[in-house]
């Protein structure tokens, strides 16, 4: 009985203070976590066409087409199929691909989610957030010496 009273008091307190968690999206841009993983951005200047991202991708989202000389021709990515595991970004030796905070992409059909390298290059930053800034420090924990505190952030 006391518990019920307490829970009713708590809900009433929340009703009276008038705060809301709701983000009214089109008018207000929602805050995303620095570690949020959104649509990819691709840099052709950086890419060395090593195809590691294509290999590591767990569900064959990335497709790379090369010519006879192993020069890169196409870099296609099916956003609608991506599970945002960030393995492609992890494995890339030159940071040519990274997942931005941008989640604002829509399409009418499934096929429109197949992005080629030009589209991936032109993915805008979300609110000018550089995703690498929030992610780089984390990697230190992976190469810890094995003694002292382990920082799992």
């Amino acid at each position: 009985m006391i518990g019920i009273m307490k829970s009713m008091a708590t809900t009433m307190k929340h009703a009276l203070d008038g705060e809301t968690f709701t983000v009214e999206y089109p008018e207000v841009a929602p805050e995303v976590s620095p570690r949020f993983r959104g649509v990819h951005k691709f840099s052709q200047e950086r890419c060395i066409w090593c195809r590691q991202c294509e290999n590591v991708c767990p569900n064959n989202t990335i497709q790379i087409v090369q010519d006879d000389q192993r020069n890169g021709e196409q870099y296609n990515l099916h956003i609608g199929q991506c599970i945002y595991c960030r393995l492609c970004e992890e494995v890339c030796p030159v940071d040519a691909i990274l997942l931005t905070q941008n989640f604002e992409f829509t399409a009418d059909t499934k096929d429109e989610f197949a992005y080629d390298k030009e589209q991936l290059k032109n993915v805008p930053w979300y609110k000018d957030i550089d995703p690498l800034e929030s992610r780089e420090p984390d990697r230190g924990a992976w190469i810890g010496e094995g003694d002292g505190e382990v920082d799992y952030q």
Partner: protein
Amino acid sequence: MQSAPLPETLAGIAGLDPNSTPVMILMSLIGAALVGTLMMTNTALAGPWAKRKITAAFTDRIAVNRIGPFGLGTIVVDAVRLLSKELIVPEGVDRPAWDLAPLLIASSALLGFAVIPMGNGIHLADPEVGLAYVFATASMASIGLVMAGYASNNKYSFLGGLRAVAQNVAYEIPLILTGASVVLFAGSLQMSQIVAAQQQTLIGPLPSWYAFVNPFAFVLFMIANLAEVGRNPFDIPEAPTEIVAGYQTEYSSVYFVLIYLGEFIHIFLGGAIIATIFLGGPAGPVLPGIVWFLIKIWGVFFFTQWARSAIPRVRIDQLIEIGWKGMLVLSLANLLLTAVIVGVVV
């Protein structure tokens, strides 16, 4: 607090003879339409809009706000959306019962408002068995529930109907026993008498509403009423997040609207009963009676939504246990104590 029934008032306004039967039949129909429209308006406001807004306030959200001011246009949009959907009739349903159940659920609760005094002369009829009549019409919804569950030709609906009826029977008895304790105080089943008995003051400015005279009965009645109208924490007949709709699984479109409407009219009928027998009916200072009456029934509706966002749902066995071992014993004790107090002290 003696007010002439609404049909006679209407006949007086129209300048017709209140002693002729055809005039009274016509005026009763008009009065019934007025009262019905008033309650349906409340329900329309509560079901698609107020319910969402209140629950959202309790859970720190905003709820509907896109259509119209404060999202009030949602009421119209929801109505159009639900009415324009296809009415799907599953194979092998027991057609007459399946068609009648939503009508019965919606209309049984509306019938109860006939004897509720709403203030300012809005009082359709005042029979001597008013309270018994209200309880009788309110419990008719149980038949609708079991009809809906049985006729759907669906085992889940059937089980849902049985659960609903088990719950309604378990909580009907404490409800009526607690109502009977009020009858002992007032000495009459007549609604106008019960309201009139709550007019004098108790202590200081506090009126002798039975909620103040016997708060224990009031709390019991509120809890039993929650279960009776199938609101949280006793909403397991439909349990939207767990068993998905129970007895109304197969209903769609207009029939769903009728069942949903019936549920909300039932809440308001419960509120009207509580307002009449515990909160002094339409009595209150300054404002006209009908406004006070509406404030009181909306207060009860607000309470049901409050309980909905604060209290977790109970299991069916816990529900039956609370009903038969807790509420029934407490309400019997309350009735006996009231009888002793009324018989010995007063």
